[in-house]
């Protein structure tokens, strides 16, 4: 990237190459297939060990100390305590529906949804705590004294408020939750501080919020024009339209689809890039201020690149997506200020025993 051209060296640097990572990615894929997926936990730990070890902060690399076994145990626990009960409730739900008690079923689904919402909040908190506790720099790790229950509640009611206000309070909810999450995290003897605000990103959010409406009416207008043109071309209702017209309409349909989601995607990227700049920029650790420099087009390039990678390799390229995401994250992450090495001492937080099982169970992304 542009690291070397800058006069000042960046605090975070990523030194990996995809050629270096390829043997790891492919052996992970092989072992995951022959173990019916069980190896994926060890594979993920291996990927992280590589990515962390190629990430340099100031003068030394990071180290990932998590193991595949931890992730595996975390998954098994989440399966036993959450996936299995949810599956059984689902079975009961089917029975309730088949008996014709739609009202009771709807109530049950509603309650399940609320419980899941709370658990997703807990899961996100615990995943971040786990990751910090397994990240070593200068022999020091991160962590949190909290278990994530309070955060789970906060996530629960803030998400509900955001939903009930027709998502208008989404930026508020996102910013507050970011602060709440990071304000309970620490690295060594230092505490993270975050005071991200929702106001700076609200404009971009409104763009994202209103764009579908504008797009919808624009497309409606274009369809009307298209139908008008079709009538002129002499398509009679009832009679089979000529093949040329069908092809034209199909192409138009595909074009609309691409434009709709393409434009929406770019606007979503515009919002997320603004949010991440605001959120990471408002986060600090001791005398260290963080920053995130990815602009909208950087995000778009990341996503388009990931999609192209997966599509043109018939899915195999998926194994490189974690690499691309991490490289993107580190290459745009900045830090200013200094770390007082001699006063930074080991974290006294309790290190969690197992990995991100709950997050896996709900299949939610990390960042």
């Amino acid at each position, binding site marked *: 990237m542009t690291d070397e051209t800058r006069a000042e060296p960046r605090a975070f640097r990523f030194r990996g190459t995809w050629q270096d990572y390829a043997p790891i990615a492919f052996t992970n894929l092989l072992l995951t297939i*022959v173990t019916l*997926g069980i190896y*994926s936990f060890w594979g993920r730990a291996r990927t992280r060990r590589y990515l962390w*070890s190629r990430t340099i902060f100031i003068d030394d690399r990071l180290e990932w100390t998590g193991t595949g076994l931890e992730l595996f145990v975390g998954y098994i626990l989440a399966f036993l305590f959450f996936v299995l009960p949810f599956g059984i409730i689902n079975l009961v739900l089917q*029975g309730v529906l088949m008996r*014709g008690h739609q009202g009771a079923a709807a109530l049950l689904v509603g309650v399940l949804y609320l419980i899941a919402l709370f658990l997703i909040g807990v899961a996100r908190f615990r995943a971040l705590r786990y990751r910090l506790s397994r990240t*070593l720099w200068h*022999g020091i790790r991160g962590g949190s004294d909290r278990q994530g229950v309070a955060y789970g509640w906060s996530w629960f009611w803030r998400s509900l408020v955001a939903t009930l206000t027709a998502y208008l309070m989404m930026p508020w909810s996102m910013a507050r939750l970011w602060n709440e999450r990071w304000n309970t995290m620490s690295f060594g003897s230092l505490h993270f501080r975050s005071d991200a605000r929702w106001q700076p990103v609200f404009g971009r959010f409104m763009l994202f919020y209103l764009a579908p409406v504008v797009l919808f009416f624009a497309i409606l207008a274009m369809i009307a024009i298209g139908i008008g043109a079709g009538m002129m071309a002499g398509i009679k209702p009832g009679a089979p339209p000529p093949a040329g017209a069908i092809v034209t309409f199909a192409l138009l349909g595909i074009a609309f689809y691409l434009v709709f989601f393409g434009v929406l995607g770019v606007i979503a990227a515009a919002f997320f890039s603004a949010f991440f700049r605001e959120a990471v920029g408002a986060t600090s650790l001791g005398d260290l201020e963080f920053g995130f420099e990815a602009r909208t087009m950087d995000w778009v390039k990341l996503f388009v690149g990931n999609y192209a990678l997966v599509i043109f390799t018939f899915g195999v390229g998926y194994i490189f997506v974690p690499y691309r995401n991490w490289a993107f994250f580190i290459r745009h992450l900045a830090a200013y200020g200094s770390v007082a*090495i001699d006063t930074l*001492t080991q974290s006294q937080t309790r290190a969690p025993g197992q990995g991100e099982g709950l997050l896996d169970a709900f299949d939610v992304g990390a960042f």
Partner: protein
Amino acid sequence: MSAPSEGGAATGAAPDDGATVWHYDGVSALRRRARLLVEGDALVLVEDGVAGARVPIADLVPGHADAGAASFGLKGRPGWRIDFAGPVPPALRARLPGAVRYGGWVDRLGLWRAATAFAAVAAVVVVIVLRTPAMVARLVPASVERQLGETMVGDFGRRGCTDAAGRAALATLAHRIDPDAPRLEVDVVKLPMVNAVTLPGGRIVVFDGLIQAARSPDEVAGVVAHEIGHVRHRDVMEGLLRQFGLSVLLGGMEGHVGGYTNTILATAYSHDAEAKADGYAIQLLRDAKVSPLPTATFFDRLGRGGPGKAERMLAYLATHPVSADRARRFRQSALAGGYAPALAPAQWQALRGICRGDTDRIDWRF
């Protein structure tokens, strides 16, 4: 990076056969440069000419092979590290534990041997998971299956169509096809889909749409006989068990890969079950002296898709793939003659009117 400047020391040329390392004690973030010396079974780190505590080599925990540089931790001392700035001197390397790469078993066996061994075990597990449901399903007592059916589907179907004459005709039809089944439960529900299903617990539900689409009682008889085949073969129980086994087995697969694999395997087995149910149905029809030809014609009609009814027909096709082979199989089973209609014309009319007076309104119940 800022590696130690005296590169010569790191190559192992020093007479003490030591090496220069970076060291963290896991307590503070201070980065120390030290000289590593081997003394018997222990290591000694010398900082600025001052020797630290002896560290037993046996307690060293090797770092990861993918990390790019040799690194060691210490048992019971989280965060304690020695990182070799350059290559590890050969004399020292022989005494230090080897690096971890893939994880315990794979490192011990080697990648290819481990992959082969895992693949063999995986193949056996998949075969067991696919094969045992057929055996286990037959071992599950009928009462347990009925109980499970009650939990899953409740009285769905039992609240079906109630026209007395129609129900009598339906009972006659069921008895005609399968006279040895006193406990066989067949119901009709007023839904427009052209379909029939066997529910967990061995209850057969025929949708009214199928009865209206049929042109003779023999066509309905063929479809019901096919479902009786599913009941006898315990196919629903088997399918449930297999589905459960596969979802547990493939649960660890990332994203949708597991789901797709699951669907493909389950579909392959359901095709097999369909073919077997057809075989059973053909035998039942032969014993009952009901002609299989109308059923074959019915499949032909479904395959072509009736005008305007395509979307209703799709329901049956989705669960019972109709192919030319199926119709041919029924057709080939036909004998020269001696067949009698499954129901008398008056009974057939009664069956067609079984849902008379019923509504297909769905009401909200608690």
